[in-house]
């Protein structure tokens, strides 16, 4: 049974295993530094003949299918799926899952959705409520642009602090046992932080305080130090947010995580060459990075202790236009390598 440790951390004493994972990404991501790590690399963002929203659903189901095939599992074997995306009413996930007949819980955690899915998935398996849970998240540059920003062909310039929504999806299969596979050691549902950022083109700055809060809470509750982890992986603060996270922790909490810190938004693209401004963002960003590079390295034991802190900006175009602040959230998942 999941057990509360300290104030916020939820330990999973049975150590549910992530037995399989799958990813599918679009063109820019396929041209990025992680292209060899992804399962399916589309050479276009127009993945299907339908709408951009349908293209995103296709990415999501591709990732789920890939993960199931690798584990030799089927839709019928699956007890639960926690999936989410950035679109209104989580339609990308709902439409991708509808033909699978798997019991579905749609999640909205903005870019933190993958961490939220892994956390809830871990709890569901550890508590015995599920024998096989899928956690999945997706985003698509084109569907996000038309919902949050401008029409695709609109000619304009972005500010250097803007991040590019990743066209990609990731899915992970969580089961009670899986000897050598990566384990979920503990998870933490984050608290909302709002330090007054209103610039929708600077999501990193909006999310960094939440990431700092979650990292500090997690370390305090578990009695760990940053160096106890091989990696503290935030997703996805990008260049600006990463800088602010390190600074916040240093200045206000006297904690230095710079030696072990990585960020999914910085890893997925070659920021200089690919002209992606401050890096990647979107639910698909941390989903694609964690469900490829990170879980593979945990499986190979190149990494043994990873604190994955998924970050999200909880805003909508409406609240932004009304001038409201952008609250941030961050959920943590402690991943360890198998026996």
């Amino acid at each position, binding site marked *: 049974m999941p057990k509360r440790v300290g104030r916020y951390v939820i330990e999973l004493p049975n150590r549910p295993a992530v037995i399989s994972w799958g990813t599918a990404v679009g063109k820019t991501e396929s041209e990025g530094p992680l292209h060899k790590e992804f399962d399916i690399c589309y050479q276009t963002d127009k993945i299907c003949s339908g709408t951009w929203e349908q293209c995103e659903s296709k990415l999501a189901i591709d990732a789920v299918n890939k993960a199931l095939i690798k584990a030799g599992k089927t839709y019928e074997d699956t007890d639960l799926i926690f999936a989410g995306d950035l679109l209104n009413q989580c339609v990308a996930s709902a439409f991708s899952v509808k033909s699978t007949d798997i019991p579905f819980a749609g999640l909205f955690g903005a870019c933190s959705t993958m961490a939220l899915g892994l956390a809830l998935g871990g709890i569901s398996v550890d508590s015995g409520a599920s024998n096989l849970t899928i956690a999945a998240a997706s985003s698509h540059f084109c569907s996000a642009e038309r919902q949050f920003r*401008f*029409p695709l*062909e609109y000619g304009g310039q972005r500010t*250097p602090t803007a991040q590019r929504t990743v066209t990609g999806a990731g899915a992970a299969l969580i089961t009670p046992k899986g000897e050598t596979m990566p384990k979920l050691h503990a998870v933490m549902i984050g608290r909302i932080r*709002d330090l*007054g950022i209103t610039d929708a083109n600077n999501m990193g700055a909006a999310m960094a305080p939440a990431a700092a809060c979650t990292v500090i809470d997690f370390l305090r509750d578990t009695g760990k130090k940053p160096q106890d982890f091989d990696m503290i992986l935030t997703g996805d603060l990008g260049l600006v947010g990463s800088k602010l996270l390190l600074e916040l922790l240093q200045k206000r909490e006297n904690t230095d995580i710079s030696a072990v810190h990585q960020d999914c938004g910085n890893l997925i693209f070659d920021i200089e060459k690919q002209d992606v401004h401050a890096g990647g963002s979107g639910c698909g960003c941390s989903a694609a990075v964690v469900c490829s590079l990170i879980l593979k390295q945990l499986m190979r034991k190149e990494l043994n202790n990873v604190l994955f802190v998924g970050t999200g900006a909880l805003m909508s175009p409406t609240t932004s236009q009304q001038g409201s602040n952008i609250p941030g959230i961050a959920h943590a998942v402690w991943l360890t390598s198998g026996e």
Partner: protein
Amino acid sequence: MKPSPDPEYAKMTKQASPPSKKVQNAAKAFLVGGLICCLGQGFLDLYLYLGIKEETAKLAVPITLIVLTAILTGLGVFGKIAKFAGAGTFVPITGFANSVVAPALDFQSEGRILGTGAKMFTLAGPVIVYGCSAAAVFGLIYYCFVL
């Protein structure tokens, strides 16, 4: 309810955020914007040379630029030029044309009425509203003091 902002964090954010390259952007905008104006002048000279009346030719020039922008937007080229040029393509009539064509294309998937028809002026609408309002105000001033 708006929580009190954190002035120290606002300062940190400002320092951590790289600024736009203002001088470089202005130079590019000046160059491309100027080129578009030269292109317009070129069309005007061409139309006059072809024997079109000056009044008609002056009307034909913006129409030509609008059609060209619409075609380039549809081909996906305009966005790339605009990314380089910034205000250089945004300020002339090309920016207006693009802001109508882009949503019209993008929202085709929501149908002719609620998609293309309704969304076509989401970006250009404010320009029309405030452009017409400003014209009316200045027209009134002109009427009162000059005529």
